[in-house]
């Protein structure tokens, strides 16, 4: 049971953003994709989400080819991407209703209430996106993605635009939702924060810059859960991975320059 990416290619003009990417992600894992800007990590995520059509290679989910968006995968974007004229409640409910036409109206309402409540926004549900903070907007987007009840959650630099405190709280909420609340099994998160990548993930996948544009290194993070943000840094494995990631990214930076 897994997500398999085999020989994936994607070119924009003359730029190879993905070159022969092979990656297997086991069900139930939290995987961080890390790399410099423009290394193709968001493109890879988009391909898994079905938003980006690769030029070559295959993506299969439990043997079924992935070619378009589907209810088994939901996405959280860096830019929140809420529809500005809908309330937070409508943003979640309409998306769930459209993504899961197979479900009843009451299931849709139940999931909407459950996840808006879980991210602490139920009492703000009638507000418009413009009336809430960036953190609240992104929590709505997280609730929207979970409420579809996807098997795989795809996060594209979800906390990049938030301040450090808000980011920490949302990371915590994300782990709780994934671990306890939801049926969502696998999480793939694109990030350029080393600490965030290691703190949250079971595996950290490092992408290399173009022209190589492929998986450069994969680290397992053998730190038991639940992880405490305050003490996780003392863990030997954490420091080790952190150093190696820093070294690789610094080296890549030189190659790119």
């Amino acid at each position, binding site marked *: 049971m897994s997500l398999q990416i085999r020989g994936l290619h994607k070119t924009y003009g003359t730029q190879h953003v993905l070159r022969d990417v092979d990656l297997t992600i086991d069900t139930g894992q939290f995987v961080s994709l890390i790399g410099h800007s423009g290394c193709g990590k968001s493109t890879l995520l988009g391909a898994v989400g079905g938003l980006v059509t690769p030029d070559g290679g295959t993506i299969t989910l439990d043997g079924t080819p992935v070619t378009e968006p589907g209810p088994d995968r939901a996405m959280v974007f860096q830019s929140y991407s809420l*529809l500005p004229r809908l309330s937070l409640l409508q943003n979640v409910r309409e998306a*769930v209703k459209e993504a899961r036409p197979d479900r009843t109206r009451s299931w849709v309402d139940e999931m909407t209430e459950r996840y808006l409540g879980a991210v602490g926004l139920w009492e703000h549900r009638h507000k418009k996106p413009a009336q809430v903070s960036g953190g609240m907007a992104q929590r709505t987007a997280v609730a929207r993605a979970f409420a579809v009840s996807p098997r795989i959650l795809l996060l594209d630099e979800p906390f990049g*635009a938030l301040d450090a405190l808000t980011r920490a709280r949302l990371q915590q909420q994300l782990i709780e939702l994934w671990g306890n609340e939801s049926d969502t099994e696998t999480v793939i998160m694109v990030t350029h924060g080393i600490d965030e990548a290691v703190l949250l993930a079971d595996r950290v996948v490092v992408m290399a810059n173009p022209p190589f544009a492929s998986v450069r290194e994969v680290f397992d993070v053998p730190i038991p859960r639940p992880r405490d943000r305050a003490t996780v840094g003392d863990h030997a494995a954490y420091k080790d991975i952190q150093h190696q990631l820093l070294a690789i990214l610094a080296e890549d930076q030189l190659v790119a320059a």
Partner: protein
Amino acid sequence: MSTNTQEATDPSIVVTDEALAALVGPPPPPRERRIAKIAGAVGWALVGLAAFVAAWWFASTRSPGLPSPALAWSTLLDTLADPFYDNGPNDKGVGLQLLTSMGRVGQGFGFAVLVGVPAGLLMGASRRTWQALNPISQVLRPVSPLAWFPIWLKVSQDAPRAAVIVIFITALWPVLINTAAGAATIPQEQQDVAKVFRFGRVAYLRHVLVPNALPSIVTGLRLSMGIAWMVIVAVEMLSGSTGIGAHVWTMYNTSNMPAVVVAIIVIGAVGMLLDLAFLRLGRAVAPKGRS
């Protein structure tokens, strides 16, 4: 998207009211300030009007055909005293003529909206429809709507109906092009949301396409109405018989120049009110805050 509005004020720059008062004296109360602002605007408008009337008066002393401002003013008062009199088909008040013209504009404009908005949405949302319709509309758009009049007169054998069709053609292009432009510029992030959550046609139309296109649609309506109101006068001058344009022509033919001037003033006032209505509508549908 911007950040929370609370963060918009920088706490490091704090100017207390006391400090400000010490520097520049107490600010006038907001109400007083507003009245002063309005008085200023009205004052300068009156200055502009006075200059215009003075120039007009000067011109009228040199040219016997041009009625003087004073004559126009007294004719305007007479006209407005009884705008809706009806002495048979050849002698109707300006009010009735205006209503006739507005009815034609309303019909042609309404029909243009019914056709232009859906077609524009389709053009904006589908590249093939855009490619199919854009060349035709680009060729036909610069044609003066009056050039169509002979065709529609021949086809419909009825001048008022031909006038309505001309207004339809006039109003169609701005509505169509602006709607299409609005529908073609949906933010990428909203398109991605619609794809990831697999929005159906109805949900996409309702939650993504129309809300994003709406400000542009209203801009199109405003432009259309503005041009339609100009064109109706010209069409009715061509077609004769009824309407404010025909009235202008009849007054000219009977050498009643003050009535022509009054008609111009009334046409301008109605056009301004129509434009104002659409401006208000545009403000009402303008996106609020961040997207």
